[in-house]
């Protein structure tokens, strides 16, 4: 019957929740759930899981841009219908997984996947650069300081060799978030690409009272930089706010609370690079990513500075780290001074914490390594 705008509540169904996962499991998964014994990454992008009873499932993992059209999804459905009994899954990092229940089904499936050209690159397993977790950017969000899908495409093009191979010391997880809200959760990534603003908000005094609750806007600022203000709009005094630009750290929280305080700016906005975060508890505890490059410009359409910087870090790491060592573990082992030296990234005061808890990061020991940075002292 369909929706009837005149009787919107009649026959309405709510709170169904998600579809039951059990209905969507491929047969071999359903049959062996809970009894898997071990796995092997047979080749890049191809996993084999073996159950206690000897049953096997082979998974082919494919990269995806995450922004996917209806056509695109239908393509993957076609593949899954042809080879996988009509089932497939996505990973928590937006890769696509096609599963088959025997080894001899792997090559035919791969052949079909490859028939789509570069649409579904196979890889993303083991000691690789897997898909980049990212966010909306200019495609859909109101607060971004950079785009999301564009930089991701440019970086993945450049690192493509690392997606389809397993030659790195450990897995490298890259994430991008287009503003400090960090929907991409870049705060714990091996390499993080983070959109940042660098200009304080403008105040659209004509609109403040209309669209914001002034006390909330004031309260939103972690540094108390937003203050009440009486502005003159068209000759009339209106209640508004002002920003003490000297105290602003461009977090954008005021704009989140008040649409009349936009921050975005072509020159002000760009990308910071953070490195060395991790999530897993394997070997070392989860670590936060650390800011190592404070700003790179939004050089559309391909962000060459960002692409080069990420590669520079990755290559230095690949060359120097030990097997199993995540980027953050590597940097901590060699010391951050050596990290800057080996990656050849310039060190700037911007990498020195001056927010809350900052003292904890100051070096309170005589233990440090001499590097190019100390040459002026030891010449």
């Amino acid at each position, binding site marked *: 019957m369909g929706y009837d705008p005149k009787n919107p509540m009649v026959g309405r*169904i709510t709170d169904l929740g998600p579809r039951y996962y059990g209905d969507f499991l491929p047969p071999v998964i359903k049959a062996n759930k809970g009894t898997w014994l071990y796995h092997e990454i047979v080749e890049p992008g191809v996993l084999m899981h073996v159950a206690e009873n000897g049953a096997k499932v082979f998974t082919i993992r494919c990269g995806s*841009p995450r922004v996917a059209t209806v056509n695109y999804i239908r393509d993957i459905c076609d593949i899954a219908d042809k080879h996988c009994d009509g089932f497939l899954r996505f990973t928590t990092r937006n890769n696509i997984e096609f599963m088959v229940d025997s080894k001899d089904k792997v090559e035919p499936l791969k052949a079909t996947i490859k028939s789509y050209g570069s649409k579904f690159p196979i890889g993303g397993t083991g000691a690789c650069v897997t898909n980049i977790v990212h966010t909306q950017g200019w495609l859909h969000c109101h607060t971004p300081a950079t785009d999301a899908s564009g930089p991701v495409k440019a970086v993945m093009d450049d690192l493509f060799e690392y997606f389809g191979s397993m030659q790195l010391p450990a897995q490298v997880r890259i994430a991008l978030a287009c503003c400090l809200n960090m929907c991409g959760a870049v705060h714990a990534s091996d390499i993080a690409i983070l959109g940042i603003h660098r200009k304080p908000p403008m105040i659209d005094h004509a609109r403040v009272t209309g*669209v914001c609750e002034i006390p909330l806007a004031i309260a939103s600022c972690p540094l108390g930089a937003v203050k009440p203000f009486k502005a003159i709009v068209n000759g009339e005094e209106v209640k508004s706010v002002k920003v003490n630009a000297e105290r602003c750290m461009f977090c954008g929280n005021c704009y989140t609370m008040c649409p009349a305080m936009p921050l975005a700016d072509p020159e002000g906005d760009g990308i910071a690079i953070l490195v060395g975060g991790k999530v897993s508890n394997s070997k070392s505890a989860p670590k936060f990513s650390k800011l190592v490059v404070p700003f790179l410009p939004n050089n559309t359409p391909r962000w060459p500075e960002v692409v080069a910087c990420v590669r520079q870090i990755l290559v230095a790491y690949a060359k120097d780290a030990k097997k199993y060592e995540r980027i953050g573990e590597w940097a901590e082992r060699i010391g951050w001074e050596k990290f800057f030296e080996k990656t050849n990234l310039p060190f700037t005061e911007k990498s020195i914490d001056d927010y809350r808890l900052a003292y904890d990061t100051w070096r309170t020991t005589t233990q440090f390594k001499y590097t190019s940075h100390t040459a002026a002292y030891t010449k």
Partner: protein
Amino acid sequence: MAKHETPLLDELEKGPWPSFVTDLKQQAATKPECWDILGQLELSYKERITHWKHGGIVGVFGYGGGIVGRYSDVPKLFPGVEHFHTVRIAQPSGLYYSTENLRSLMNLWEKYGSGVTNFHGSTGDMILLGTRTENLEPLFWDLTHDLKQDLGGSGSNLRTPACCLGNSRCEWSCYDTQEICNSLTQRYQDEIHRPAFPYKFKFKFSGCPNDCVAAIARSDFAVIGTWKDNIRIDQAAVQKYIAGDAEYPANAGAHKGGNWGKFDIQKEVIALCPTDCMWMEGGELKIDDTECTRCMHCINVMPRALRPGAEKGATICIGAKAPILDGAQFATMIIPFVEVDKENDFEAVVDVIEKVWDWWMEVGKNRERVGETMQRVGLPTFLSVMEIEPIPQHVKEPRSNPYVFWREEEVPGGWERDVVEFRKRHAA
């Protein structure tokens, strides 16, 4: 053919990684609004700034979440994206799909939306990207009636819970992540759809400490599988690894592309154990499990020889969040071990959840994540309201400042003193 020139975006059609621009262009053939998406994005690329207006509250009747309003700030140039709201659809736990379901969703979205999606959003929802306000109710009707599916979360409510694929395909999962994720998502539909919290609240479920759904970094309430008995060792398999048997590749083959030489159990496993609790003895691998912190490393490297213990459950960590306002937080270890048992409707986990909520809904300030409320009141107070006995496992290390807040009842004689009496004994 092209409705707008996109010279900048065209550059993103080059290179080996699949191009969302190419995909959008192809889709534009049947969904012309995709041209306006491309057109506005091209303008953003040219001007290096977003062209979306701030927020906008839209939704379906009776729900306070699931839709994110979005409008173009250049609607005249790009009328196809004048309204461009997101519809968040709750994903099935573990992200498995039948093509049948996916095709139905695509048909729905072809009908009511832009034809563009995200599989998936960062929280885990399916994201249908861009539709008009007037399409929301009809879409919701068809979604619920025809597809038997529902919206996910947004706003100050429980966000759509997410999990790693768990024991559906992973040998390490210490509990059924999908089952609890699905079950609690159903249980808390009201909390997902009708904002009642101080701010957003996220559950994530990982089957083991590898934490493949990033629970400890990205969820207010993280349930992470673990075990309480000993790591299970197959000594024969240990020998295969040491011998370099091709069927027993180190780290399950995750390093196959590197030139790392022959597997060295001492260097690759024993020396990298963070607690130094492994050694070889009489040709056997030994583990002092009382010293093990269940980090997974040795198991990751030798999956055919080592397995998590048989007595499984989960650790509960609370309070992760993104950096605004005071810096990012990881979730803090609160409950060392809990049973995750479908038979009793996950009672042990539910108890903790509801206790946290009761407290946070009462004392949490507007837009204060639970991790921030915990920081504000302090961990001892949080533990005490949760009726959890403080244990050294709650901290990395004891405090180094001496600033203890003693309570009056702890101090003999209380706090009231008589300065006049004092002065009799102590001349000023």
